[in-house]
């Protein structure tokens, strides 16, 4: 097969883009849910929970995302769980995202003045109400710029699913590059598509940060 890079090839890339977006959304939703638990454990009163969360974050931030994907991918097969490739990589991305989001939100929770917790306690609010109504709404607001910024990392990270063989945007690019023999053009287009996806988020994150910085002054 030796084609030129035309509309069908571009369409194939967009088909890959669909999976990149889906994987990113899955990882953000899953990583957000698990990450919230990580953040709560990391700021819990129990020393054991705190230590577990510290270890969890250290392992996922201290090893390559690619290795995490490999270990989850082959580990699931080893214990006899047969999952489609997209589900296996989605689990890998979810675990990774939960460590990073958990750490971002941990920082935001700890950035709140101690008086917030004390005042809530003085009002007789229990842990659940204190977190849900007082601490988390403020913390998540503080964490907004970093959370949006992390979304860019996450989208870029999904390209590693290509190495496991899952056909998303980067893998689609490899395939088209192999059939058209125009790697520079193809990877240039693939890069441009990622850029279009990520740049607005980067700008939005920077704007949020500037707004918060101005509010702090």
């Amino acid at each position: 097969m030796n084609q030129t890079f035309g509309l069908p090839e571009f369409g194939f890339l967009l088909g890959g883009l669909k999976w990149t977006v889906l994987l990113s959304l899955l990882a953000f939703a899953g990583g957000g849910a698990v990450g919230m638990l990580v953040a709560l454990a990391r700021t819990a009163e129990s020393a054991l929970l705190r230590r577990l969360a510290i270890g969890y974050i250290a392992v996922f931030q201290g090893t390559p995302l690619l290795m995490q994907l490999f270990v989850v991918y082959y580990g699931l097969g080893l214990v006899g769980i047969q999952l489609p490739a997209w589900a296996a990589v989605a689990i890998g991305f979810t675990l990774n995202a939960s460590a990073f989001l958990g750490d971002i939100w941990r920082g935001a929770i700890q950035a709140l003045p101690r008086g917030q917790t004390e005042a809530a306690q003085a009002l007789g609010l229990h842990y659940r109400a204190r977190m849900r109504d007082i601490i988390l709404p403020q913390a998540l607001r503080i964490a907004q710029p970093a959370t949006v910024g992390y979304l860019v990392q996450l989208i870029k990270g999904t390209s590693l699913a290509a190495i496991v063989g899952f056909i998303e945007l980067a893998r689609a690019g490899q395939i088209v590059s192999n059939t058209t023999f125009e790697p520079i053009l193809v990877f240039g287009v693939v890069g441009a598509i990622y850029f279009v996806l990520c740049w607005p988020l980067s700008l939005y994150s920077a704007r949020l940060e500037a707004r918060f910085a101005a509010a702090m002054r």
Partner: protein
Amino acid sequence: MGPKLDFSVVFDALPALLWGCVGTFQLALSGMALALAIGIGGVLTRNSRRAPVRLATITFIEIIRNTPFLVQIFFLFFALPGLGVKLDPTQTAILALGLNGGAYAIEIIRGGVQSIPKGQTEAGLALGLHKGQVFRLIILTPALRAIFPALTGQFIMLTLTSSICSSVAAYELTSVAQRIESDTFRSFEVYFTITGMYLAMSWILMVGFAAIARRQFNYPTR
């Protein structure tokens, strides 16, 4: 059917894997050196009075930060020969890591430089130092101290990112592991082991950077 783990192949391959770790360190440290050079040079061009220079630097930073490293290294891998630049996969990987880390380093170092009060520059010039000396001694050193944790954190991330260089067959730990995996089919055991090795390497770097910080920036601030 329970899981059957067999780590014996990993033990047999241990020397090769440890050499892979050396390869990763070489790749990552070379990438960091290049990133630091690009980072420092980039701060000057990012703050240049000439608009095209400034714009080119910003464009470079935004492109690198908003596209995946995997796509960047593929692009370089295929684009360089077309430009007449002949590099082997490992050299291509160092260049890719340097460019990627450099884009982040520019923004980090720039933040540090901006945190230095303007009076410090003026005081340095008043003391008769050259512009270059002022930048190196009075701006860069305290700026580097201020941003050292952020910069070294980024460098450790760069070391982890270097695993992606296996996709162009650069010599480093992941590509060594992939070779062993395809020989033995013990995928989980091999990748689980080298994940531990990466964890150890990022820990070694963390300890090393902390030691450098204690040695280099151990002067009183006021």
